[in-house]
């Protein structure tokens, strides 16, 4: 018999929604969405992405919300409660994949803090060699460690305060401010002479691109990584909801707000690049960190008022990344609370644990890149796990019993699309495997040393295999440990 433990919960529905949007909107919305959208047909990509929301993200987020709201336990305990004790390992796998991301994501937020300080202290000024600055920062062992520690200390302090006084309060500030900052950046970008070329490039009708498989693959990948669907984060936040909560509408709101954040970032970044960069296409093709820390930083040095807009840009990155990181740390924290730990003890343990396990990524950027590859693609596996578990429980049953009674949206098809998830998984996963194999034609199954085989198929498969085996071995032990439920009020 599970022990019932009462704790604080979301005080308002908007607090929950803003926190879930904070969970979904991350650095990827700002430095990945605009880059990929611009290179994959602009408007056609956005259409494919909106369809991807319905086919991929919304059903998964609904499933997650049901798991959290019904079981009132974190990722591991919720799989035990929802799918059955012998399926606890599925929850463990999802939890490890998301925590694997948390370990290096704190380092990424730390980068943004460092660059924000570069901006406000006047380091980002005309004549700055931004490539050298980034190489010196990311290539010096230990240079990223203090910023990683600072980020984790801040996250721990907030989670120490709990849901309504910690997470909810901070997200009510971070998320509206983030959207305001994105709007300010977009307005400024579109006032620059020559910015119209960026808008034209972004929105040039290229509807034939909708017939290209690559556009769809990129759109679905963006949906999978950006919305947080299948990570177990929405699940964790829904542990603390009131008894009646509209799962379908909340999931849809989170997905559209997440897309809007990326779109606003696109309206800010693409026109800026086309107005100021001598080679806009090189900037678009430069990768996430190359775009933010080298190309855009370089453009801020020549933009009138560049210091102010560089500061706003990096602050927006901090807010987006930090609000997502909070949800990842809360995921780990909830697992400990399910095992009977108090919030204070669990917050300190989760904070220290993620800080320590993130140190290798803070020390070596090739290790961070490897972890980003392994657990980033691992999210596809997490989504598959949720979809299989939903089918095992019964998709109709989940809609009828757990979603429909409290939902204003009478649209069961939105959840039933989860039946198609394994198809999308096979297509997208196969595409990534084929790409990775082409990067290392003769050595794609090798994995050590990680610095040499950073993005191989082997490094992914072996690390996943270790996690799944450990999850299976610890299945019963973790099922026995996860016993404490959260008790919600009306």
């Amino acid at each position, binding site marked *: 018999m599970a022990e019932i433990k009462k704790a604080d919960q979301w005080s308002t529905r908007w607090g929950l929604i803003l926190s879930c949007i904070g969970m979904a909107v991350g650095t990827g919305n700002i430095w990945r969405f605009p880059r990929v959208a611009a290179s994959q047909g602009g*408007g056609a990509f*956005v259409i494919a992405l909106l369809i991807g929301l319905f086919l991929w993200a919304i059903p998964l987020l609904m499933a997650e919300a049901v798991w959290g709201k019904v079981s009132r336990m974190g990722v591991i305990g919720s799989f035990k409660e929802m799918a059955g004790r012998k399926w606890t390992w599925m929850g463990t796998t999802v939890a490890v994949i998301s925590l694997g991301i948390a370990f290096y994501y704190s380092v990424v937020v730390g980068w943004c803090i460092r660059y924000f300080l570069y901006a406000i202290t006047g380091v980002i000024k005309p004549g700055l060699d931004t490539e050298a600055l980034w190489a010196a920062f990311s290539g010096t062992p230990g240079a990223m460690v203090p910023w990683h520690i600072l980020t984790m200390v801040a996250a721990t302090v907030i989670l120490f305060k709990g849901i309504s006084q910690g997470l909810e309060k901070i997200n009510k500030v971070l998320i509206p401010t983030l959207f305001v900052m994105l709007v300010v950046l977009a307005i400024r970008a579109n006032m620059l002479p020559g910015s119209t070329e960026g808008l034209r490039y972004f929105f040039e*009708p290229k509807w034939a691109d909708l017939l290209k498989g690559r556009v769809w693959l990129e759109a679905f990948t963006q949906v999978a990584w950006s919305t947080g669907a299948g990570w177990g984060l929405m699940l964790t936040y829904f542990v603390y909801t009131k008894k009646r909560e509209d799962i379908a509408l909340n999931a*849809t709101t989170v997905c559209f707000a997440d897309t*809007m954040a990326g*779109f606003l970032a696109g309206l800010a970044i693409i026109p800026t690049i086309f107005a100021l960069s001598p080679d806009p296409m090189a900037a678009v093709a430069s990768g996430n960190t190359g775009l933010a820390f080298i190309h855009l930083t370089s453009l801020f040095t020549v933009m009138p008022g560049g210091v102010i807009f560089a500061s706003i840009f990096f602050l927006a990155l901090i807010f987006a990344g930090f609000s997502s990181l909070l949800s990842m740390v809360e995921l780990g924290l909830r697992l400990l609370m399910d095992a009977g730990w108090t919030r204070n003890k669990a917050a300190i343990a989760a904070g220290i644990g993620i800080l320590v396990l993130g140190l290798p990524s803070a020390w070596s950027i090739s290790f961070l890149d490897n972890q980003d590859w392994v657990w980033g693609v691992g999210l596809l596996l997490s989504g598959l796990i949720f979809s299989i578990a939903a089918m095992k429980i019964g998709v109709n049953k989940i809609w009828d019993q757990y979603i429909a009674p409290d939902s204003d949206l009478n649209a069961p098809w939105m959840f039933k699309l989860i039946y198609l998830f394994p198809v999308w998984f096979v297509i997208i996963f196969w595409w990534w495997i084929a790409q990775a194999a082409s990067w290392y034609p003769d050595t794609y199954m090798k994995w050590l040393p990680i610095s040499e085989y950073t993005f191989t198929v082997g490094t992914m498969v072996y690390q996943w295999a270790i996690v799944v085996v450990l999850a299976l071995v610890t299945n019963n032990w973790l099922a026995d440990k996860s016993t404490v439920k959260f008790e919600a009020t009306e």
Partner: protein
Amino acid sequence: MGWQFNMIVIMALVFGGTGWCVYRTMKAEEKK
């Protein structure tokens, strides 16, 4: 169809979709 028209359509979908969700949530909260 020019890029400006395209921009309006895409903006209407993204901002309209988000706005619709926010509107439905506000209406639901008013009913409580």
